[in-house]
C-alpha cells in the first residue's frame, strides 16, 4: 500500500506538482501495481548476482582527445530563456536542490 503522503513525497523527489486528487489516484494505482510487483518476493535470489550488462561487456573507453564543441547558437537555440550566452532560471535558493 502506497499512501497519499508517500505519493506526495515521491512526486516532490521527481519534481512533479500533483493535486490532491491526483495523489489519491496515484496512491490507488501504484498500490495495485506494487501488489503485482510483490510477486518477485516469491523467489529466493540470495545467491544470484545482480545483472549489470546483459552481455557482460566491460572496459569500454575512449582516448583523451578533444573534438569541436557545439556552435554557441546551437547550444542556445532550444533554450526557453537566456541572458547573453547563459541559460537563465529564476533565482536559486538554498533549498532548491533538496
Amino acid at each position, binding site marked *: 500500500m502506497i499512501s497519499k503522503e508517500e505519493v506526495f513525497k515521491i512526486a516532490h*523527489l521527481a519534481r512533479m506538482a500533483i493535486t490532491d486528487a491526483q495523489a489519491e489516484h496515484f496512491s490507488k494505482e501504484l498500490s495495485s501495481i506494487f501488489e503485482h510487483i510483490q510477486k518477485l518476493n516469491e523467489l529466493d535470489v540470495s545467491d544470484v548476482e545482480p545483472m*549489470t550488462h546483459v552481455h557482460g561487456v566491460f572496459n569500454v573507453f575512449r582516448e583523451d582527445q*578533444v573534438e569541436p564543441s557545439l556552435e554557441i547558437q546551437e547550444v542556445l537555440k532550444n533554450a526557453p530563456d537566456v541572458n547573453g*550566452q*547563459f541559460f537563465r532560471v*529564476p533565482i536559486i535558493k538554498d533549498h532548491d*536542490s533538496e
Partner: protein
Amino acid sequence: MDYEAVIGLEVHAQLTTCSKIFTPSSTEFGHGVNELTDPVTLGMPGCLPVLNKKVVEYAIMLGLATDCQIRKRNRFARKHYFYPDLPKGYQISQYEEPICEHGNIKVRFDDTVRSIGITRIHMEEDAGKNIHDPRSGTSLVDLNRAGVPLLEIVSEPDLRTPAEASAYLKTMRKILRFLEICDGNMEEGSMRCDANVSVRPVGETKFGTRTELKNINSFKFVEKALEYEIARQIAVIKAGDVVIQETRLFDSETGTTHAMRSKEESADYRYFPDPDLPELKIQKSLIEAVRDSMPVLPEEARTKLIEVYGLSEYDADVITAERLFVDYFEEAFQICSNAKATANWLTSELFGYLNKEAIRFEDCKVSARDLGTLIKLIETDVLSGKMAKVVFEEMFNTGKSPEQIVEEQGLKQITDPEEIRKTVTSVIDENPTQLEQYLGGNDKLFGFFVGQTMKKSGGSMNPKVVNEILKDELEKRKG
C-alpha cells in the same frame, strides 16, 4: 573540560585531461560562456557517455601514490538531484564501488609525521556553474565546467587540528602536482575542499555530531574556517545545546560559517548503477603500466635529497615543494656534481631573484643546465664566487648561457701563474715606498699589494694564486 576536534576532509581534484570525462568536449579554461559544451555536456536527449581512459589511469595513479587498494571491479552510479548546473538531473559518480580504497599518506607537520587514512578515491563528473543575480532575481547557468573529470578524495577522520588539516591538504596538493594530474589551484577551483568537523571531550572515543563545511575556496581559509567552526561547536556544547548535523557554508568576508539549509529530510540521491556505462575491470597489466609511468613522489624525492645528496631537511623541504624544483635540482646536479652548492644557488639565488622580480618559476630564463654549468665554473676556478654572481644576474635577465657571458664580457678568471707573477712584479716595482715599509715589518701592507694586483687585473685574477705568488715575490725581496 577540554575538547578536541575530529576532522575529515573531502577533496575534489579536477583532472588535467584535455577532454571531459564522458565526452570529447574540451576542458580548457578561459573560453566564452557555454562555448565548451556539446550535446553530451548539455544533457541533450539521446546522448550517451563514453569513459575517458586517462581518467581511470589518473585515478589509479593517485591510488598507488596514496597506498590505496585498487578495486578490481568498478561501476559508475547515477546520483540524482535537480539543479540547473547539473544538466542530466544526475551526476555520474561512483557510489558503492569506488576505484581506490583503504589508503594513507604521510603528513609532515611541526617536526612530526602522521599517517592519515584515505577512505576512498572515486571518479566523477564536475557540475557547471550557477551565477546568482539577486538584483534581477535570476540565476545564470554556464555549463563549460560540466563534465570535467574529478577525483573525490575522502580522508578518514584522522585529523585533530586545523593546522594538521591544512598540512594534509598541502601534502595532497603536492602529490597531485607531482603526478601532474591536477594543478591544485584552490582559488580557481581546480582543487576544492569540504570538511567534516565534530568535537568531543579529550579522552572520549566516540565521535560527536558533525557538520559539513563547504565553500572553503582558498588555502588561506582552511584553518580559519575550521577554527571558527570548532570554536562554535564547543560553545554550543558548553551552553548546554547540541550540535545539529547540517551543511554549513564558510563566509570568507566575515570568517564565520552559517547553516546552508535545515535538513528536515536528508537528500535522497536515488543512486543506481549507470546502465549506459559498462563495468570496469581493472587488470593488473593496467595497474603495472600506470605504476611504470609514475614520476617520483614528494616523499621519495625528499628522502633521496637527504640521504643520497646529503642535503639538510630544510633544503629538502624547500626543493620538494614542487616537482619542477626537484627536476631542476637533479638536472643541475648532473652537470656540476655539487649538491650543496646546487641547493644553495637554487633556493637562495634563483628563488630570491624570482621573488624579487615576481616571476614564476615556469617562466624563469635560467635553465637547470646553465645553473649547473655556472656552479661547475666556480668549482673549476674559472669564476670567482663574486664574478659568478655577476654572471648569474646576466643569466637571469637575458637567459644567456654562463659560457657566453664569460666570453662576451671577458670575465674569465686568470689563474696562469706566469701572467699573475708579471703583474705582481710590476705592482711591487711600482710601489717602492710601500715595499720598504713592508720589508720593515708592516705586514698589513700585504693586503695593499693584493688589492693593487687585483685592481690592475680588473678583478679577474684568482685571489688564491695572487696570494701565493705575492707571498713568494715579497719573500724573495726580503733577501
